[in-house]
Each structure stands twice: as C-alpha cells, then as structure tokens.
C-alpha cells in the first residue's frame, strides 16, 4: 500500500559520527530508507540505537556525516542552517517526550506561537479541538496534566499543517491511559490529514498502530515489518 504513494523522505547511506580522534561514536552506520506520504512509521529500538539521531536528521535538527536525505526531491543534507530553520517552520511538526511547552503561554498561545509564523495554518482553536482540548485552551501548562500538556504539544505541532510529524517518545513520560489518549490524537492527525508520521518508541506495543515498523539497532536498520492492518490506538494495551 505504502509503496504506491509519493516518497516524502528518501534517505541514502547516511552515517553519523559523533566526536573526533580516538573517541568516536558511530550513531548511524549507513541507513537507506524511503518514507511515503501519509505513512505511519514506528522506529523501534533500544536507547542508543540511533533512532533519535535519524529522527533529528530527518527534521533538520542535526546533519548527517555522510550520505544524503532528500525531502520531496530536494536534498536537505546540503542546506545551511537558515534554510533548515525555514524547512522546520514550514514542513515539520515535532513532538517531544517532555512536551516542551512554553510555561508562560496558555495552551492557545502555545499553539499561536506556531500559527503566527506558519504559511497556511489552522487556527489555534481548530488545532486544540483536534486533540480534544477545546475546554482547556486558556490554561497555562502548570494547570494541565501531563497528558493534556502532550496534547497541546501535538496541537502545536500540527497547527501549521506540516508535511511530516516527528514524535520522539511521545508517551515516554505518561501512564498507559494518558499515553493512549496522546496516541489517539497522533493517529487522528495521520488519518485525517494524511500527515507522514514517524514515532520513536521503545514500547513495542505501539508498533501495532504503524503501517511499517522499522527496527533499528547499533546504527543500522535490522529489519522492517509491514503491518497488513493497523490497530486502533484505543485497542493498545501494555
């Protein structure tokens, strides 16, 4: 199914080496990967396997040591920092494990932070409705639960209608019930907007939601599983 869609990211032979001289760490040792439009991909691997490095390179936060990454036929690996900033601004939505909301802004304002600078955003209210937070729009982060904060982060990520949504351990700091609420929101975005979604996790259960599950260890893709049918986030249990 996925193969018929347009390729959003084409990753060819990327490596990432941290440090210099005797003490170097090979975070990625040569990754080849295509991600397709509307696809839901889960990156599964132990900590230190290189999955976050891959995600950061895809999102334009980090650069590869060698190899190339193309986003819709443009080679982002060659872009300067300013161009990467614009790339993130226009095309990428990020969700982090620790939410990273601005504590001095309300939920609505946190989303407005993005809608103010995006090209064709939805309104903050629309975005917050997508994650079922219309009732809590004027609350500050300190007045929201962890799950609610993560949903605000998702609303903030998708309000610009990004081409890709990159989530790094979005449920890592949450309990099962709130985690599932957050995954539901991600799933809904992916289905309704067709946003290419990459979720990093070390929770194998979440893999059931994906079109493809990419197992990474030691800086290499070990195997790729294709799910014939995706499960609902609501049906997940761990």
């Amino acid at each position: 199914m996925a193969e018929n869609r347009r390729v959003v990211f084409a990753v060819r032979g990327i490596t990432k080496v941290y440090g210099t001289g005797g003490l170097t760490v090979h975070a990625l040792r040569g990754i080849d990967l295509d991600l397709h439009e509307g696809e839901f991909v889960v990156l599964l691997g132990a900590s230190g396997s290189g999955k976050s490095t891959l995600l950061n390179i895809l999102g334009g936060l980090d650069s590869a040591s060698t190899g190339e990454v193309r986003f819709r036929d443009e080679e982002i690996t060659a872009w300067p920092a300013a161009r990467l900033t614009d790339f993130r601004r226009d095309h990428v939505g990020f969700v982090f494990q620790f939410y990273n909301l601005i504590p001095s802004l309300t939920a609505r304002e946190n989303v407005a932070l993005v809608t103010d600078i995006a090209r064709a955003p939805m309104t903050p209210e629309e975005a917050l409705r997508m994650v079922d937070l219309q009732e809590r729009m004027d609350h500050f982060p300190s007045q929201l639960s962890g799950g609610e904060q993560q949903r605000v982060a998702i609303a903030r990520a998708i309000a610009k209608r990004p081409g890709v949504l990159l989530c790094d351990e979005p449920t890592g700091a949450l309990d099962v019930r709130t985690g599932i609420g957050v995954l539901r929101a991600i799933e809904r975005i992916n289905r309704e907007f067709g946003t290419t979604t990459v979720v990093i996790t070390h929770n194998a259960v979440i893999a059931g939601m994906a079109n493809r599950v990419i197992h990474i260890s030691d800086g290499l893709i070990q195997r790729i599983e294709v799910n014939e049918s995706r499960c609902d986030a609501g049906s997940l249990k761990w």
Partner: protein
Amino acid sequence: MRRRLPEVVRAIDRKIWRDLARMKGQVGAIAAVMSCGLAIFIAGMTCQGSLNRARAEYYAESLFAHVFAAVKSAPSSVTARIREIEGVSKVQSGIAQPVTVTVKDFTEPVTGRIISLPEAVEAMDLNRVTVRRGRWPVRGRDREILVSEPFFEAHRLALGDRIQVVLNGREEELTITGTGLSPDFIIEMPPGGFLPDSLRFGVFWMPGEDLEAAFAMEGAFNQVALGLGMGANQEEVIRQLDDLLEPYGGLGAFGREDQLSDRFIADELKQLRVMSFFPPAIFLSIAAYLLNVSLSRLMHLQRPQIAVLKSFGYSTGEIGWHYVKMASVLILLGTAGGSLLGAWMGRVMTGMYQRFYRFPVELYHADPALFALAAALMAVLAIAGVAGAVRSAVSIPPAVAMQPEPPAVYRKSILDRIPMLRGASPSARMLIRELERRPRRVFLGIFGIAFASSGLIMGNFGKDSIQYIIDVQFGLSQRFDAAVTFHRPAPLRVIQDLRAIDGVESVEPVRAVPVKFRLGPRSKQTTVQGVADPERFVRLKQLLDVDRHLVEPPREGLLISVALASALRAQAGDLLTLEILERNRPRREVAVAGIVEDFEGLSAYMSLSALNRVLREGPSVTLAFLRIDPAREKEVYQRLRESPRVAGVSLKRASMRSFLDTIGENLLRMRLFNVIFATTIAVGVIYNSMRVVLSERSRELATMRVIGFRHGEVSVILQGHLAVLVLCAIPLGLGLGTLFCLAIARSLTTDLYRVPFVLNRETFGVAILVVLAASFVCALFLDRGIRRLDLIAVLKARD
C-alpha cells in the same frame, strides 16, 4: 571507610572547580563587582587612615598648638600673662606678615607669608618647623630664610638661591638655607584662593630678630599659639585670651577646628568617610545580589545532583557547606582582586593628597588590619547572599528533587487585561509574563543598572560643578584682571595713584574688615567687603544673586554669601550682630538685605558708605581690583611691586590656570575610576542577570528554534527583556544620580568652599551612552549564547 572518605571529599571538591570553570563569565563578573566595591572601601579607608595617622603623628611630633590668635601688635611681655591663663601649658609668640616675592625667571606675582623663627628648633615650644633640606637659618648673616618645601620644589630652587622679598615696603634679597614644613601649613592656601598654588604662594621662615627689625616690631608679636594642658577648657581660654589681646588689636582667637590647614584636613576626612562607606556598600550589596541569583540558578540546575548526593548519604549540612565553599572561592577572588586594586588606588589617591597635604612623614600607610576587615566584610556579605539559595536547595527531599520539575507557574496578569496588549504576539506575552513573574528580581536588576548609571553621573558631577564655578566666578563675577592688597587701610587717594599707572584701565576700591558675625547661638568669623559706589567706580567684581542676576549692595544692610547664610541659618531680614575685629572691637547690628552666589565660602558685602558708617570712620581701602591692558601686564605688575603700600598682587588668569591645573588631573583620575567602576557594575549586573535568564529560558528558546523560529525571532525575546531592564533603569539611574550628587554637594560644602549642585546635559548623555554600550556588549554575548544553544540536548533533558 575512614581512609576512603577523604577521596570522596576530594571528588566533590573537584566539582567546585569544574562548576566554576563552566560559569567563568559569571564568576568573573561577580568577582569584578566585588573587587570594585572592596577597592573603593580599601582605598577610601587607606586615605582616611593615612591622613589621620600622618596628622596625629605629625601634630604630636611638631607640638601643634591648640589655640591660635592674631593681634595687630602686642608687646612680648603679654606672653607671660597669657601663660597664666588657666589650662595653658605652652605659649609661642612671633611675627607673621604677608609679603610679595620675586623669584628669578618667574614673572607672575607671587605672594607669601613670612614667619619668625627662634634661634633653634628646640626653642620652639609649639608648631615646630621641620627642616627638610639644608639647615636652620642664622640671624644677621646674609638675611637667611627657610622656604616651604612645596614652594621650593614648584620653583625648582636650590639651596643658596636668593629670592627678592618686599619686607615692610623695602625689597630685600634673602638667601635660602633650607626647606621646611610646619604643622600649621600642612596645606598652604593663598588668601582668598580655592586651592593651594605652590607657584604663587609660599611660606617663609626668618630668624625672629631679623624679621622684627624689618617690620619695626622689636619686642612685639602679632601672632600667638597656645598649647593646652589636659582637661583645659578651650572656650574659656579663648575668651580670656581675647580679653587679654583686645587692647592690642586682637583679631579673635580660635581653636584648632578653625585653623585653616587643620580644617581642610578635617573636611577631607569627612568626605573620605562618606566615600568609603556609601559607594562600597552599594557595590557589595549588588555583588551579594548577583551571587545570590547566580548560585540559586546553579543549585536549581543541580537539583538532581543534590538529590543523588543526598541519596548517597551526604548530609544536608555537607551539601550546604559544599556550595558555601563554592561561594568562598568567589569571595576569595573578589577579595584578592579588591585588595590589590584597593591598595593600588589607595596609593594613587594618597599620592593625589600628597600634592596638597605636606607631611614630613610618609603619608601612605597600608593597614594590614584593614585588609583583614575587608575580607571579613566580604565573607559576611557573600554568605548573606548565598545562605537563602543554599537553604532552599538543600531542603528539598531527594525523591522530589529527582523528579522532573512541574512547569513553572504563570498566571494571567494585569497586563493581559489591558485591551491594547490583547493583540500582542506570543513572544511579547512571554516577555511580559516573565517580567511579571519575578518582580523582585526584575526590580533588583533595574536597580543595579540604575546604580551604575548614577555612578556615571556622580563621576562627571565634579567636572560640571567646577565648570559652573569657573563660569560664574571667573566669568560673570570677576571682571578684573588683578587684585591688589594693601598692608594696612589706605586712604582713598591710592586709587588715583593706581589708576595713574600706565596700562591700568580701571580700578575698583574695596575696604575689607575682619568681623565676627553672630546670630542667636551661631557665630562665624570672616570679613566684610565694603564695595564702592557704582556711580563713582566701575564695578569689577560683580555680585550675583542665586539666579545669577547682578545685584548691588543696598544703601543699608548686608549681602551675605549662601555659605554664610547657611552657616548662620540667616535669611534676608535677619538682624546680625557684627563684632568688628579692629581697634576697640565695636559691636553693631546690621540687617541682612539679601543672599549672593559666591564660591569663596563665608563672605559678606556692604556698600562702602554703609560700612564706613558702621565703622564710624572715613573712607579707606584695603583691596583694589584692577583691569589691566594685557600687553602691559608685566610693567603694571612691576610698578605695583615697587609700591610700599602693596602687600600682594594676584592675577586672575594665573589663579584660574593653577586652579585648573591642580584640580584637572585629579578630576580626570577620579572620573576614570568612576567610569571604570560604573561600567563594571553595569556589565556585571546586565551580564549576570541575562545569563541567568538565558539559562532559565534555554529550553523555551530551543523549543522555539526547533519549531521553526529563526535566530533573530528568538533572540529578540531576551533582547527585549534586556531592553526593558535597561530602559527602566536609565531614567531611574539619572534620578538617583541627581539625588546622590545633591547629597554630595551638600556634604562637601563647608565654610571654606561651596560645591554648587550643577549637572550638565552632556553628563546625562554620557551616562546613557555608557549604559547603552554596556548593554550592547552584553546583548552580543547573549546572542552568542542563543546561537550556541544545543537544540537536541536541551530538548532531551528535562528541566
């Protein structure tokens, strides 16, 4: 176990160095502010201690008198009666006369004071002259004299040189056998001058018999000094002395506190006390505040580390001690820097004082106890700055400290309710809410920067004040080129003689009379100047009221200077009692007609005719102001010097130049110190406050960068924060600076001189510019900090 413990302690101590090395910018800024505060304290205290010590030592060694009196002429036999006054232990009488002097190759008028000496120093019971070079002069032989050391040095004279001195109208050639210093001339002030001028005023000592002969005062004296025994009643001694001397033309006895040289030192010490207390207190409080903010932030960042240490079994006390040790390193740095800087500044400043105050002993004295006191003071202040932070950090239970912190609590604020701000961008809201959340810190930050700008204003206040004095005194008021003083009251016709000199364009006569003013319990001794009728003589010394408008003395009544008015607490309309210190010391009552702006200290003016009525005598002059054709200045001066009546001539241009020369360099140096210190505070406060804000907000800023904000869009949030601090601080600083200058002007004003409260626009401009420049530099650092944010690491870490 016991053997391993020291290793663990060493590991935690190593953490101190690593942590400090990481914060080196902040550490440097805090240590610099501390050093400045401490340096001013040490320098001020050193000057104060040095002056005090040198004065005490010198007074004791030279047997400085307690009571002084001048008299027209009294027979030597009176000294025996003075000795009988109860409480008097020593009496030293002699002759002192004003003289005009000619030094080879120096064409300007020079005046001086010549004082009689006994045969040997041992014969001086009081105010002993110390011979610094050469030898004691011997009578008769070659007309020998001692010359005051500053005069000797200023003119680069040599022993054996001769100078021309007009003694009682006769010019005589005197030979220099040595140089001297005496405790009653530690500072040598020319009469009517603002500052010592060693080129144009000197003190000379001559064997008593020679001087008596020259002035036809054999067996007489015109000045006397008294030493008092323990428990003597000075007031009573002065009263009895006045009574004793009255028949001989006593000019009023006074104590040490009114002796000119001593009073200058006392005023100086008073200023130093102010200087070594207030500015250091401000500096050190700011340093303590910076230490508190920076350490609080550090401990906040290290909450998990503190928790881990606690879970290992480190006690709260041990961890608290760890941070106190970290603070001690800063204190040590500040103390070391401040001590070195303070010792150097103290030396520079005592050097400046040494130009004015001459002691035969070394003036500079660094007191080791002072440095110990400074270190203790720093420790107390720094611990006060650190204690709160340490207490709150170590009191959190480890389990809580290891949890990620909940998001900081923000609330909708008053600003959110202002309709105009409803449309504000999220970045603007972030800025406003952050400022509102920490009002105390914002306020202290603003205050710190404001203090820096006020320091810059204080730094330039001296210049503005002096510029004003020059403008008013030398520009508006003194329209004359030279002032001529006469030995004794002369008939009015000498004015015609002066006017007849080729090159003299106009002359204004003045009659100056020594008086003692009384109003209620207060009394002040000074002179009244009787100024001539403006219809008959050109006014060459203008009187100005406080608004700088010209005023004329009324037909009756007195005009008194601002300084005299405030010393007596007199207002226009008050009736003053005038005790005339001439002849039989008559007393009169005269009303105050107005107040005049005058920087000569205690002065009073009347119309000449009114003064003559008060004195009940005919017209006479003691002083004349001259306007001279500049091309013929030298010839005029030569003619004046030859006149037997003339006791002294002073050129306005020369006194103005010497005033600027003397004070200019010191002012420049003090301004430089001030600007350096104020800039240090400005940079210290701004840099530290903003580093802490950057650290606290790095996560937010990194998030914004990740979600697509450009560098400039993120940077502006912090720069906006900085701008708010600076823009609030500048007007506050200008206001504070103005208040401080007003306080300084008040505290520096003495009977001897008045410091006008004047601040020029440039002073404010410079202060604003320096603060803006300091902010700009900090903004660049801040920008670099934002550029260096590690986006990935910040996002991975929990706050």
